[in-house]
């Protein structure tokens, strides 16, 4: 039987999908809800404002840590826990945002940070996140504010992680595929070999014969890389979050303080939402419109080096793009733009004139001069809330997600260590 604790905290009321969306993993895997949980009065309690239902999922099996119980921090207002042992040293972590950053960070934390409970909280889930619109090609952008070595590390870690998936039987479930193709230039670039050339597979310059296919272009790269598709990858990550004992909660957070004191650490993966949630004026949308079409004969990607025109064949459709409209928040597709995208792509790949079942999609890339990957200790009166920010990947979300999630997890671990270190005044 697992251990769990009920606490009543400050929260606004939302129609939250309690019973059915909770799994209750026990030591031997999922177990059905107990009669206690099913009782009506339990459910009616759930409608009381400022209620949070918590459960410890992971027991620190290897180490019995006898540090101060964290319930002392918020015993005020806590109700009677059920008649099991009091939880030990559980650090309650809230991950805000359920796009590729939120979910991958949740998975990393659940694997690498022992003794914590994870709840992913978001107003939007797949297939309605920005990550669902992204084509998911592993061709990284360059962040001006981040050292190249760091970007290369993030990209390599992401590539290696997805490469292991693509070589397994789970590749199709996880939405990860191998795809070869060309990046083409209308003029010879100053940097002929990009920093990520040895991360992708088989990177080389295009031959003259290959370039004949693109008469407007004079130079190109040929390589094999990965494509990771949100609509399959996000559910796959969600399964892993739940399988590791994490919870998923649909709720719109208007202020990070709503999570205090129910949670000990907040991981902010809210993308553009950080403008409000973190008061970050540096983040802005770069609107991208794409067409997802049927053209199954297209087996290669083609990308113009400007990044504005691309053809990315995926599992069940081909993504044609795109646009880069800074500061544009409009999520509705523009028919003129769609026509123009199709025309640019047909110029590179004439057979696309036969594409059918065209669907327009819009995503707002959460853009910043650099990814925000840092700790912040929020303070208000006597309240303290450690936050780890992990957002702002712009057009490189999928390409960098695992590397930055690993780094965010290291930061979370640092916060956990701080929380677990006994405060000096409690020692006599």
């Amino acid at each position, binding site marked *: 039987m697992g251990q769990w604790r009920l606490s009543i905290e400050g929260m606004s009321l939302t129609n939250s999908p309690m019973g059915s969306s909770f799994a209750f993993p026990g030591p031997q895997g999922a177990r059905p809800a107990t009669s206690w949980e099913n009782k009506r009065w339990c459910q009616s309690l759930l409608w009381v404002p400022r209620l949070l239902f918590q459960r410890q999922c992971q027991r620190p099996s290897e180490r019995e840590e006898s540090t101060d119980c964290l319930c002392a921090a918020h015993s005020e207002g806590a109700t009677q826990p059920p008649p099991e042992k009091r939880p030990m040293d559980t650090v309650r972590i809230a991950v805000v945002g359920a796009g590729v950053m939120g979910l991958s960070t949740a998975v990393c934390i659940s694997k690498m940070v022992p003794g914590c409970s994870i709840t992913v909280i978001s107003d939007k889930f797949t297939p309605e996140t920005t990550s669902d619109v992204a084509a998911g090609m592993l061709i990284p952008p360059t962040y001006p504010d981040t050292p190249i070595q760091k970007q290369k590390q993030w990209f390599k870690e992401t590539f290696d992680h997805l490469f292991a998936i693509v070589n397994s*039987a*789970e*590749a199709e479930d996880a939405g990860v595929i191998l795809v070869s193709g060309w990046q083409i230039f209308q003029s010879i670039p100053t940097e002929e070999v990009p920093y990520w050339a040895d991360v992708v597979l*088989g990177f080389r310059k295009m031959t003259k014969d290959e370039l004949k296919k693109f008469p407007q272009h004079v130079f190109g790269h040929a390589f*094999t890389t990965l494509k990771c598709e949100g609509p399959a990858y996000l559910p796959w990550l969600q399964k892993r979050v739940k399988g590791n004992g994490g919870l998923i909660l649909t709720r719109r957070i208007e202020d990070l303080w709503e999570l205090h004191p129910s949670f000990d650490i907040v991981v902010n993966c809210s993308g553009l939402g950080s403008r409000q949630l973190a008061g970050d004026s540096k983040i802005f949308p770069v609107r991208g419109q794409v067409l997802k079409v049927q053209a*199954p004969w297209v*087996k290669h990607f083609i990308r113009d080096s400007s990044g504005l025109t691309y053809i990315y064949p995926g599992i069940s459709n081909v993504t044609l793009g795109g646009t880069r409209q800074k500061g544009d928040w409009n999520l509705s597709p523009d028919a003129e733009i769609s026509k123009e995208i199709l025309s640019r792509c047909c110029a590179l790949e*004439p*057979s696309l004139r036969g594409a059918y079942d065209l669907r327009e999609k819009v995503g707002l890339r959460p853009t910043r001069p650099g990814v925000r990957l840092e700790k912040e200790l929020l303070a208000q009166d006597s309240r303290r809330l450690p936050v780890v920010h992990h957002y702002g990947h712009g057009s490189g979300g999928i390409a960098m997600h695992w590397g930055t999630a690993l780094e965010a997890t290291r930061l979370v671990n640092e916060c956990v260590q701080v929380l677990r270190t006994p405060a000096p005044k409690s020692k006599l």
Partner: protein
Amino acid sequence: MRVVVIGAGVIGLSTALCIHERYRSVLKSLDVMVYADRFTPLTTTDVAAGLWQPYLSEPSNPQEAILQFFCHTSTRISHRHWNQQTFNYLLSLIGSPNAANMGLAPVSGYNLFREAVPDPYWKDIVLGFRKLTLRELDMFPDYSYGWFNTSLILEGRKYLQWLTERLTERGVKFFLWKVESFEEVVREGADVIINCTGVWAGALQPDPLLQPGRGQIIKVDAPWLKHFVITHDPERGIYKSPYIIPGLQAITLGGIFQLGNWSETSNIPDHNTIWEGCCRLEPTLKDAKIIGEWSGFRPVRPQVRLEREQLRFGSSNTEALCCLLLLSRFSCVRLCATQWMAAHQAPPSLRFSRQEHWSGLPFSSPMHESEK
């Protein structure tokens, strides 16, 4: 001038189109007809995966080509030349909006070996040929060496449909007719016969060198696979090692080659061989939906038979052009149409002087004199 093409597979239809395209404008009386007992989707071409990839080495001695007849033309035309011409022709069509309608698309992929092998003679014909890196080889634990290149898919069924449309537009007529002898075709008024009967050519004229190389394939729906993967096992022999070839919609799985086996029905042991071999190579295939299973006969011959023969029936003289594009033991020519060669052969029959039409090809033919 009636030209009858016997056979409606890739060789028959592409030869018919080539002849019509080249000679219709100069020979107003040209009438091209196609006789066949099988049309798409029932031809051998329909079963082929459609990947352009010859076998690893050329026929050791092209001079061994059997040309016992009057014409000595094709002795110096090697398979390499035909392969290259075909590839270049198809590649030139890649930029056209109709490519996919023809069944044509570029495709890249892997050739895998258990030990190092010399580069194939076609390495400069395909695009971007290179050896595999160690990280790429990590994807295929049973293999330690390999190549990567970009080639072309020409899907048999789509291509035959496209050729049929083009021929129909040009007024070429098709006849469902099981031809029992050249004589009956001549009696119908044929002046030139192009024999593209493939593996069944022996029924029209005995050819002990011709045998069926039976293949069985499974077509699956696995749209996440974008590359071909062809494994090679020199001990087992050509095509007996698993291969995965994406088509325009479906993926072809194969790995069967049985010389002399005329069974056209698919069988379970071969299914299991293909399925196990391919799933080992690509574990995600376990999620693939099987669309269907087919068997076909690669028309195997030591050399392609491409030659002219003069037939005499009663008082009429008819040229028969044997245009059998065949898979030889030494060269794997999956879908390399020799329509160009057939058309080049045609001029003497159509009474044009060689000088006008051969343009540089090193032919010589005793027929030349008799044409005048």
